[in-house]
């Protein structure tokens, strides 16, 4: 049953990523790996650049269920490069799942007004805990549109 659930989850994630890749012009991701309590983990941030909006998501992944998985804080920022003005910012803190091996949070954001290039930023600190072992990598993905 557990294998079936994992296979189903893998399928859903795979289809989601496939659809995202097909729907957007450009996909970019930053990724890093580490371990807590001997369990291998990955932190990933992705930005997909669309025509009218951008799609950002944060993923925390472990090869087996761990005590706590998610992020401590997550910030999305849009900067208009020619003026240097920050035109949008959203910040979230402390979102986690317990006893799980996967965490995903995502957001679509319509582009703010800007003449020229936009700098899109997806940044923040992931949260992995297993027993007394903690891994909190900061990871940032930047994309220009």
């Amino acid at each position, binding site marked *: 049953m557990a294998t079936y659930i994992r*296979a189903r989850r893998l399928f859903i994630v795979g289809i989601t990523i496939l659809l995202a890749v097909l729907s957007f012009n450009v996909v970019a991701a930053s990724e890093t790996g580490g371990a807590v309590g001997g369990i291998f983990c990955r932190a990933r941030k992705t930005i997909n650049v669309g025509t009218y909006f951008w799609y950002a998501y944060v993923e925390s992944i472990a090869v087996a269920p761990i005590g706590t998985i998610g992020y401590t804080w997550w910030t999305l920022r849009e900067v208009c*490069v*020619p003026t240097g003005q920050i035109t949008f910012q959203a*910040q979230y803190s402390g979102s986690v799942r317990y006893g799980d091996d996967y965490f995903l949070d995502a957001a*679509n954001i*319509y582009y703010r*007004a800007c*003449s020229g290039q936009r700098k899109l930023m997806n940044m923040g600190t992931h949260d992995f805990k297993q027993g007394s072992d903690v891994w909190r990598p900061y990871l940032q993905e930047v994309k220009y549109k």
Partner: protein
Amino acid sequence: MLHKRFSPILTIIMIVSVLVLAYVQFYTVNASEKIHFSYNNVTNGKSALGNTILPQDMLDRLNQKAIELTSRPGWVYTKETTVYDIDRENNGVLPNGQPIPLSHTIESWFHINADGLVFESVSIMWAENGDIVQVSAFANGSAWNSTTSEILHQEPFYLGLLDYGFTRDMQDYTERLKVQPDLFNVVLEGKELIVFTLNERHDMPVNALDYNEPVYGVRTSAYFDEESGLLVETERIMIFEDGTERKYFNIALEVRLDVLPQDETLKYLEEEGR
């Protein structure tokens, strides 16, 4: 054993994947038939302006005039008065705790060199009550924002079109959807304006941070001054399931070559003034 357990699952995954891919391909191929709203004033290169000019040719002509103005050596001043209508109190909170108001004005001074490149600039965002929200400056190869205090390397840059990406959006629109934008002219306060409109339905409803309900379509209009070629106003309308519309943003743009920065503005170009 594992193989036997997985076989039916893998078969189902493969069948569903093929069906999903087929659906996506079908949807993509038929996108141009699905995006139309009820009107399109331009057919076969014949526009509502009553002549045979194509929208792209008209926009190229306007852009040529605008670029000639904004690439001259000296100061280019812009004043953007922007209003957003979204289901959020603001456009977020800046790193210094200051909210980015939905209604604000950005004044910018871009200093253009003999090569037509911006080599220094200052931008100030003002709230409606006259408070400064944020200041950003670029000088001596570095860019700075008052709310982060970060100093980033930046090369002199080409100012380009002050059109909020409309030229790029229109090119993308005509190439992707194989339709021409609406094109017409209006006279406003004695000025002849050329108006382009892009009208598009999303392939799938979009759940965005900006609205509590999904957005089904987007309509963008841009108003250009026929004489100067400069964009003077642009708006983006969001369309919801029941056909109701909300103006995501409206921007009035003023571009002038005769407004020089005052001393209190110039001080932001000096490191000690930040």
